[in-house]
């Protein structure tokens, strides 16, 4: 029987870490992910885990140590947020290009400035081209479920890429909700042992990791790395199908909430989706056909699949919880707009930036947005700006 509990998102992910019991965790504390290395350290001190915890002097060192451990053949994890991830930047690319399936628990927080500790997706969205798989959660349950699935995806022989399991800072990480946990033995059997084909501590094989590549080889190396991200699509779906069998919970690239017959859709990532679902239920009771596409997998980007799911919508709001300073809207809006164009969608699109520096996104905000979508569907899109903010004083 599954265990019913009440946990914050950080507690839930730390619990998954305990159940998986990886070999090595180098980590450095930063709000709001500090609890993750803290809980793991407690588990180790209490004899409930035998992970080698490395207290490093910075996040650059955390990711460097993770790369070394993973290349040596150890299943490795770390955790960070915001500026911590920014300090890992150089090494994020090294982890991915050396094909090291490290799991990173990211608790999304704004990057400076202004200095702010609250939820935003600017940290992981900034790292969207670093070559990491990125999976996002709506609540603590999904953060837990995603972390349990992480190594199965990352360590698959056709993938061998690092994976980022993201949850919204404070809103999920510190908000306590009901959760259903799997039994330890079920998780252990599902995740299995890590048996890399090649690793530095293998005394039967010599190995060099991260060699220099001159111009005549570098482009081929990058193309091969891109193939691994393409291969991750099928692996993510296969692992989700297998996970459904042990958990009863269904996952894919995204969740469609009352989307099938929806005229008006919101596309969003993370905790704002729960808020949007409440707004949809209220609007549906009044006969307004509102729906949601909640993005779970952002890397690899399931653009064609999202465009297909949105094909009957008249107007779509694409929501980014980060300002990318491109003067063109956020990254989800930019990439999904391109996918809709390629799919020859005729839907009206509103690009939205919301929730910066932890600004609330409310049910009222979502309902107002659906009203705006209905208006542009009926009367045309007369937006004068490329994108707009929600929840901004203006």
């Amino acid at each position, binding site marked *: 029987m599954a265990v019913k509990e009440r946990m914050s998102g950080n507690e839930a992910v730390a619990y998954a870490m305990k159940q998986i019991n990886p070999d090595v965790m180098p980590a450095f504390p930063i709000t709001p992910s500090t609890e993750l290395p803290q809980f793991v350290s407690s588990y180790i001190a209490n004899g409930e885990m035998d992970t080698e915890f490395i207290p490093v002097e910075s996040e650059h060192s955390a990711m460097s140590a993770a790369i070394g451990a993973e290349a040596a053949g150890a299943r490795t994890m770390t955790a960070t947020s915001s500026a911590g991830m920014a300090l890992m930047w150089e090494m994020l690319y090294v982890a991915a290009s050396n*094909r090291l399936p490290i799991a990173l628990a990211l608790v999304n927080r704004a990057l400076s400035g202004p200095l702010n500790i609250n939820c935003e997706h600017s940290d992981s969205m900034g790292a969207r081209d670093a070559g990491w798989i990125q999976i996002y959660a709506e609540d603590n349950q999904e953060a837990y479920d995603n972390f349990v699935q992480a190594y199965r995806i990352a360590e698959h022989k056709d993938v061998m890429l690092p994976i980022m399991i993201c949850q919204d800072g404070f809103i999920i990480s510190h908000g306590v909700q009901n959760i259903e946990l799997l039994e330890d033995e079920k998780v252990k059997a599902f995740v299995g042992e890590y048996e890399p084909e090649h690793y530095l501590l293998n005394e039967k094989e010599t190995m060099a990791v991260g060699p220099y590549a001159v111009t005549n080889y570098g482009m*081929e*190396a990058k193309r*091969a790395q891109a193939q691994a991200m393409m291969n991750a699509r099928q692996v993510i779906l296969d692992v989700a199908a297998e996970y459904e069998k042990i958990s009863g919970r269904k996952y894919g690239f995204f969740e469609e909430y009352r989307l099938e017959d929806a005229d008006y859709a919101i596309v969003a990532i993370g905790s704002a989706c729960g808020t949007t679902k409440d707004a949809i239920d209220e609007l549906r009771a009044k006969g307004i056909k509102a729906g949601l596409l909640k993005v779970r997998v952002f890397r690899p980007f399931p653009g064609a699949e999202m465009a297909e799911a949105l094909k009957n919508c008249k107007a779509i709001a694409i929501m980014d919880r980060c300002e990318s300073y491109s003067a063109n809207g956020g990254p989800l809006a930019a990439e999904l707009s391109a996918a809709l164009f390629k799919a020859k969608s005729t839907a009206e699109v509103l690009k939205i930036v919301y929730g910066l520096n932890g600004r609330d996104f409310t049910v009222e905000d979502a309902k107002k947005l659906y009203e705006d979508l209905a208006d542009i569907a009926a009367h045309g899109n007369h937006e004068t700006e490329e994108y707009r903010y929600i929840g901004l004083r203006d």
Partner: protein
Amino acid sequence: MALSAKDINENTRWQDLTDGLQIYEPATSKNFLTGEWRTNTPVLDQEKCRNCLLCVPYCPDSSIPVKNGKRLDFDYDHCKGCGICVKACPFGAISMKEGK
């Protein structure tokens, strides 16, 4: 199908490279002829050489082979022509020649 390092060359397709260009064989640097980078070339004057072997540990590319306690001529396949051996030789037995 990933190839071994010695079989990879400038015509190799991306599908045939190893993950992350990892290398699973020892001493593959032997296959990489760094001597092609050389612009100036060290030349040994056998008359002046006393076989003190001081030049050997100074060579950063292990391009001065030693056999039976005596140094042989340079390994020009791998010598990059840095000229450190010229400075290391106490007897002026090595000089730099312009070009390869």
